[in-house]
């Protein structure tokens, strides 16, 4: 039996573990590969209109795999590592892409609670029949992944790799280290799938680099650093990426290690609409650019925005240093 794994949504984030798990199972696994135009077209054609771009892309990956494989893994992620939720569409992912129809070849739909080891193990073992391997083997694979998780540092486990994967796994630009001091630093925030899918975001990271901007993803921040920022909220946020992005934005801002914030969001994203507003309400007049991705996004418009943003950051920096780069700015003041 051939099992397909869509390389979309949170795949990049959990990639090492997913690969390890299926490698250990020794089953025939096909990965859908990075998003391309055809995948996106297919996704748009098959997905509900109202869904956001990342979901449509995911659907595209699934459609591609449905043609090639006997089963397609569409996980139902209930809670993340720390007990946070993601958007409801993740919980309903098998329904969203499978449309509740039999014969959609979708497996792995047991609810996964990444924060509860036992629940997770049981849920994964329950899948053994669908995968077509013995329970013992699934159990072994699961344990191996657990070992693997323990062996890694937190920063490496979760979240890291988003930016470096855009670069084909080459140089590490994720951390602040290794960047020369003069460059403009921008906090690159948003859902990891928007940041890491270089087809959907039109090579955003390379674009930034070409403009001389160093993207900072804040991956070195720990869970505690982020949680610290939640104080003062009436209700502890329950979305993983609300906590993460809000926390990162606040922490990086306090450290003073970035010149601006670039938030990559998908059009009509429910959780981002809240996150962005909450960040905006806290940062005052600090520069923040929100890029919205959808299937209509034109590259030219994005280039213009990024260029303007880079220029704005450059000028702000000059201004704060007291040197205004162009004379006409002085003229304006007088």
């Amino acid at each position, binding site marked *: 039996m051939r099992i397909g794994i869509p390389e979309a949504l949170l795949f990049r984030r959990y990639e090492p573990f997913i690969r390890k798990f299926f490698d250990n199972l020794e089953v025939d696994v096909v990965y859908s590969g990075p998003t391309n135009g055809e995948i996106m077209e297919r996704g748009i054609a098959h*997905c*509900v209109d*109202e*869904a956001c771009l990342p979901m449509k892309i995911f659907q595209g990956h699934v459609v591609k795999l449905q043609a090639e494989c006997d089963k397609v893994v569409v996980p*139902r992620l*209930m809670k993340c590592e720390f007990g946070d*939720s*993601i*958007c*409801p*569409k993740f*919980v*309903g992912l098998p*329904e*969203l*892409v*499978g*449309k*509740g*129809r039999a014969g959609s070849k979708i497996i792995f*739909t047991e*609810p996964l609670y990444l924060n509860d080891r036992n629940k997770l193990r049981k849920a994964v073992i329950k899948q053994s029949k669908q995968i077509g391997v013995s329970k013992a083997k699934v159990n072994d694979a699961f344990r191996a992944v657990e070992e693997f998780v323990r062996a890694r540092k937190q920063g490496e486990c979760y979240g890291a790799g988003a930016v470096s994967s855009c670069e084909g796994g080459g140089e590490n630009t994720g951390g602040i280290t290794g960047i020369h001091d003069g460059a403009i630093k921008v906090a690159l925030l948003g859902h990891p799938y928007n940041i890491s899918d270089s087809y959907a975001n039109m090579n955003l990271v390379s674009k930034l680099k070409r403009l001389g901007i160093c993207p900072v993803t804040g991956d070195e921040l720990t869970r505690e650093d982020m949680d610290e920022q939640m104080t003062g*909220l*009436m*209700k502890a*946020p*329950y*979305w993983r990426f*609300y906590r993460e992005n809000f926390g990162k934005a606040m922490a990086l801002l306090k450290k003073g290690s970035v010149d601006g914030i670039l938030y990559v969001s998908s*059009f*009509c*994203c*429910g*959780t*981002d*609409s*809240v996150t*962005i*507003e*909450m960040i*905006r*309400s806290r940062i005052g007049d600090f520069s923040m650019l*929100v890029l919205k991705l959808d299937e209509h996004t034109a590259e030219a418009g994005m280039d213009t925005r990024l260029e303007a943003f880079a220029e704005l950051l450059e000028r702000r920096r000059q201004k704060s240093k007291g040197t205004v780069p162009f004379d006409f700015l002085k003229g304006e003041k007088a």
Partner: protein
Amino acid sequence: MKLTFPRFGDSNIYGRLLFRELGVDFVVPAPNSAEGLERGAARAPEDICLPFKLMIDNLLSAWEQGADTVIMPATMGPCRLGEYGELLAVTMRKQGCDFRWILLDSISAIGVKELVHRLAQAVEDSLCSKRQIFRVLRKTYTLIKEFEKLEAEVRRLSPYDKTAGSSKAVLRTCRRALEQAEELSEAINIVRQSKKELHSLPRDMSKRPLRLLVTGEIYTQIEAFANHYIEDTLMDLGVSFEKNISIGWWVRNTVLNPFGGMLAEAKKNPLMPHRIGGYAKETINEALRCKKEGFDGILQLFPVGCMPEIVAKSVFDGLAKDEGLPVLSIVYDEMGGEAGYLTRIEAFIDMLERKRDMENVLSGDRCRIGKHGFCCNGR
């Protein structure tokens, strides 16, 4: 302290009578309107759902009337509704309205103690004893239940009216009277009177109206402004319909029954086995029931960008294809003109009627069919 609450459906009627009886000072926000929506939308974050925009305007209007404390339900992650409180507070503060917030969460999330504590904040100015408070709460719930029963009967019976629109008129008169009522007992009596009146109307039970189910996102279903008064439209079009998600339903499931969530999760549903937030599972549950009970079609309503209902719509797409169950999904946003919605609903109903008449032809009942295959009983 001057209490206020956002408007949804008949919350103005219930809230007014409840706080009046408790002796709590309160204001009722101005009703939702097109201007209000514009005002709310201008101050709302991008891409937020419609209910939020309307609530901003509600609270602005309450602030103008001197309110200083907001009581509102904020339950149910992982949909956005659960984050409303926080975001509303930030947005309102930006507008210079520094409210005190009493957020009612479900018992499973904050526990009984915290909920009671929060509710106690709302009634701290009341002179009533605990016992009296409970009595008033119970009475309010009775009122909600009774009124919703009346509504359900009107929805079911209105197409049988001998004089078109007479049932609808009873409901309207009743609502007006409730808005003027002085106290809960009086209100309950008004509803009971109206029910008698409704039952005494002349009816033609030989009619065969279409039976539809209205389901979808909860706010859009409860607040008539948000769904462009779809109930009035359906009654005018002579359709008998059911709509089960209401304020009373919410109270029953979330407040009165701490295990409501668990029960809903346990309910078997082959198309959507797990709760995904919001009320998407309930939407699908309803649809499956409707299929069993022989309804003619389903109307699914939700505001643009509603995350759980998007998943539900996806399931409906599959259901419509596989089972031939007609579903019309209506996505509301503030830009949509009335005409577009109306055309869709009318066409959907026409389609169902003609389909049904066609089935009659196939089964031998030719009398209602015109020469070229269309029914001639067009209204």
